[in-house]
């Protein structure tokens, strides 16, 4: 090309060529200015903002990807830590349930024995009371029956007996009672 370039400049009559294609510096200037103006206007109205937006979007996507990557990593680490934590928590919960169960058992046992004891106490107290009451009642009944017998005897004796008999029986009774009391 270099070679042909020198040949071109050496042999070709450029002015003739330019004449043939109507080269005119006026036209060159006008066309150049036209292109420069269009290029500037295109840059001013379109390309500048479009390129800026494209760069911004690319940056945003890049930062978004980086962010997503970081989030993914964090998520993974969080996930693993969460698993261990959950495991620990499960263990802890198991332990708590176990201790609670044993506690409940002991408390139940305690309650059972306590209630047994209390029931026994109540029963024994009741038995005591019953015995006491029976004693009382027996005593009262004895006394009442005794006095009743005496009354009845008195009445019978008063109706059928003479004074002599009465004295005799009284003396005999007195004697018996005395003997009985002495026994």
């Amino acid at each position: 090309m270099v070679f042909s370039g020198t040949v071109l400049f050496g042999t070709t009559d450029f002015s003739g060529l330019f004449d043939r294609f109507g080269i005119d510096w006026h036209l060159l200037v006008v066309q150049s200015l036209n292109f420069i103006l269009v290029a500037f206007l295109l840059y001013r109205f379109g390309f500048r903002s479009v390129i800026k937006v494209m760069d911004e979007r690319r940056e945003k996507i890049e930062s978004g990807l980086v962010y997503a990557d970081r989030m993914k990593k964090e998520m993974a680490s969080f996930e693993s830590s969460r698993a261990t934590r959950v495991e620990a928590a499960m263990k802890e919960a198991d332990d708590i349930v176990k201790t609670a169960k044993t506690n409940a058992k002991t408390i139940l046992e305690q309650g059972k024995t306590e209630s047994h004891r209390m029931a026994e106490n109540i029963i024994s107290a009741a038995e005591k009371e019953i015995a006491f009451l029976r004693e009382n009642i027996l005593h009262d009944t004895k006394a009442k029956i005794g006095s009743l017998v005496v009354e009845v005897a008195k009445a019978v004796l008063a109706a059928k007996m003479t004074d002599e008999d009465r004295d005799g029986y009284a003396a005999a009774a007195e004697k018996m009672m005395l003997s009985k009391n002495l026994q």
Partner: protein
Amino acid sequence: MAKLWNSFFVVLVFVSPCTAHCSGHGDGVSSAATAIFSIGGFPVTDSIVMGWVISAFTIFALKFALRGGVKTIPSTGQSVVESIIGGLREIMEPVVGRKALPVVFPCLLAYFFFILLQNLGGLLPGMGSIGIRIDGEFRPFFRPSNSDLNATLALALVAFFAWAYFCVKCAGVGGLYYEIFGNKAEKSEISSLMYCALFFVFFAVGLIECISILCRVISLSFRLFGNTFGGENLLHNMYGFSTILKNMPVVNYLSYLIPLPFYFLEFLVAIIQSFVFTLLLSVYIGLVCNHGDHGGEFLKGEEYV
């Protein structure tokens, strides 16, 4: 989007035969643009008018696509623009280098969109067929802007100055000088006498490199001009060919189909040429600015003109 392309093709199918490069003068499209009128010594040619129309369309199309503001969550139009920009950036990034890309990219984008829409606009009906007759001479209003050497040469000149500016900005004057004239030999591998001698060799190589750099202006402009102008001629000639068929009794309707495949070809060429121009410019910038990071290697050892 697909619907849009479909409707575009439908327009091409039904309207293209009417585009009629029937300007009437000579055979084929005239190699120079014709002046319609002039303002203060500045002639206004048909290609300049077309350039203005398409420029205005480009700006309004972009404004329309981005209506409602540029948002983080893009609208349909914005996502279309963004997908093109994103695709270009993916391609340009390893060529220009990560460091220089933010500085250079808007310029490359402007070149891509400008040339693409000028090229596609050149396929529209009405090129060279709508005009006025002044003094018995037909003067068309529209001519594909890039089929005028003035337009492409202007683009290439602007590209050359932009290249110089970006190189100085990204690599510095010293870096640019080193890239062209500098001694790139490894000092540790050769003797110091040899190293000093290589200074002259590399300086001579740099002079040749300068010619090659100047040739880039010519090659850039002529590549774009040649493709567009050649395509325009091709369409014109195919239309002329179809007029022969038109006079025949049975196959006259087929005449409308003859230029059609070439419209598809030119559609492809329009896209590829805008891409090539942008890519070559980015390669030229990358040759100087792209050091350090990985992408720089695949540009080395080749002469891109």
